């Protein structure tokens, strides 16, 4: 607890705010639409996927409110990709700074991932607009549980960012490797296709896919905001107990990767 208090001391909070502010200011500088781009990009991706998989391939058959369903998946996955990619490069790209002032290194990773988190929250506005237009079945519990799911997804992204950013200092290969992993992950996560399709094919595969915290978060968010037909842990395993698996994955990765980061961070300034 004491340590957590130090991590979020007034000084560190001020630094975090300033770094996030700078990040935002710089990202959309010199572009006409500015911030709108971070809303438009996932929207365009959604449009493309919708045309290909709903209009042409008709993979969505049977899923009510498919646009909201798809949009949620795309935005949550987009957040995961953006947060981990920015988190991964955060230490290397701020190397110039780290060599000149003493900074708590984790703040740099925080700031990179928090920018992505703010994007996600703003993206949620579009989801809400979609929900209102299409009129999906929103559960009252969503008000409480959606923030919990976001926290879970954020912590998972943070854990991965800690690991990747530390490795990236010495081996720049990881950025390429991670791109490939994200590509594969996009298809290994039920984003464009309904998990039901996989479950029909082989229930075991559906179970494994759902143990991925990102998939679990996406399916739960869909369940809360769109339709009962989004398969969650309860449906696939027949017991809510299995929620422990993704939660343990998130917590243990946060601890293990956090420790790894702390150990390596001593030598960042020398290795950069």
């Amino acid at each position: 607890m004491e340590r957590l208090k130090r991590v979020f001391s007034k000084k560190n909070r001020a630094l975090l705010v300033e770094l996030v502010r700078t990040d935002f200011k710089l990202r959309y500088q010199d572009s006409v639409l500015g911030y709108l781009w971070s809303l438009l990009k996932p929207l365009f991706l959604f449009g493309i996927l919708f045309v290909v998989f709903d209009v042409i391939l008709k993979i969505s058959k049977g899923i009510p409110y498919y646009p909201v369903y798809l949009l949620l998946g795309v935005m949550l996955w987009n957040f995961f990709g953006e947060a981990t990619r920015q988190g991964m490069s955060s230490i290397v790209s701020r190397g110039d700074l780290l060599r000149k002032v003493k900074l708590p290194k984790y703040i740099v990773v925080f700031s990179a991932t928090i920018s992505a988190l703010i994007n996600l929250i703003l993206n949620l506005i579009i989801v809400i607009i979609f929900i209102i237009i299409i009129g999906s079945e929103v559960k009252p519990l969503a008000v409480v549980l959606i923030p919990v799911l976001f926290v879970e997804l954020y912590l998972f992204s943070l854990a991965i960012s800690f690991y990747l950013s530390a490795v990236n200092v010495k081996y720049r290969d990881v950025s390429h490797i991670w791109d490939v992993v994200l590509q594969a992950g996009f298809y290994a996560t039920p984003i464009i296709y309904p998990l039901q399709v996989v479950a029909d094919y082989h229930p075991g595969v559906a179970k494994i896919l759902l143990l991925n915290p990102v998939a679990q978060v996406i399916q739960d968010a869909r369940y809360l905001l769109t339709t009962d037909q989004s398969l969650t842990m309860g449906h696939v395993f027949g017991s809510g107990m299995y929620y422990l698996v993704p939660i343990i994955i998130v917590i243990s990765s946060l601890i293990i990767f956090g420790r790894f980061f702390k150990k390596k961070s001593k030598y960042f300034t020398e290795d950069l």
Partner: protein
Amino acid sequence: MSTKKNNVAININHVSKSFRLPHERYSGLKQRALNHKRGKGFETQEVLNDISFDIQKGEFFGIVGRNGSGKSTLLKLMAGIYSPERGGITVNGTLVPFIELGVGFNPELTGRENIYLSGSLLGFSRKDMEAKYDAIVEFAELERFMDQKLKNYSSGMQVRLAFSIAIRAEGDILLLDEVLAVGDSAFQQKCLNYFNQLKREKKTVILVSHGMASVERFCDRALLLEQGKIVKMGSSVEIAELYESLFLDDANKKSSQNTKSSKQNSNAKIALDAYITLDDKKVTAVAANKRFTINLELVSKVNLDSANIGINIRDDLERVVFSTDTRMKVGEIALRNGEKKKIKITIDNYYTNGNYTVDAHVVNEGSTDDKVLIRCKGITEFQVKGIIMHAHSLFHPDYKTEVESL
């Protein structure tokens, strides 16, 4: 004991640091795999070796040493940028570093935004920085440019802003690395004045510099590093002389045969000549306890506002037995191009029998990286004889011995 501890700003306790230098910088897995087969792909270089010292609160502390002696590493350890391999460093108070030309600025942000960003990096809140903002801008003399992006600043302006932030942030401890290369001469003068103010206010300042004049002028104590070890710690004058002698020793080794040739360097901006007189007559030997004069004649080929002309007298064993410069007695001297000047230094001959060599140098104090305009080793020599004594003492001042009956 506790009060003594409270007075320590920085405690360095048996600190060692070494770096692993890869033979070939590899930053990919492929090279890593290839290197693995060949065994270790790096060598360890020890940069600092068992360094221990304290810096007191309110002290102006200098760290000097040649390139590669470990100064910057020591500074980065103090700033917490590197972590020590062995030993410990304790810092009491907020430390503001000014290393490698300041905190990381972002060229895409305006001057104003960069001030707040740098402030937060140094550990100051936005509110803190709002209070300091005006003083920073005023010191940097950049009022008109604060809303422009930093990439449109000249490099001099950027450095001025960075330096102003560092010194106006008003932390407890200020860490300055080679700051005297900052800005134009007017700004440098302002910095020097500010140093005086810091000194009066009893701020803790750590100065790393190659400019011995500034070390001597500002620092209370100094430390000489050589190959990662402390050679000596002492008064700044003492350390500055020791540092200069490191270079003199090197120069000696290089030009031991051609000492005369260094006397007149055709490229030099100043021509120097010297001779010894006794009662206005040129001499080569001086009797004991006589008052003799060292005459330095110089012709300047440049305009200088503040030249400082100094001499050293060395004995047979290369020990400096006397050293002075014009600043000590008459101040800095202005020289116009083509102007001839003669400097007369008259001293009592208190030296014992032997051969003595005079070195002379001219330093341009107007330039902050302490441009030595000319340094002539052995510009003239003299002999001391006539002392009837057998003691091997260095000095033989005017004295008397009396015997009294009690």
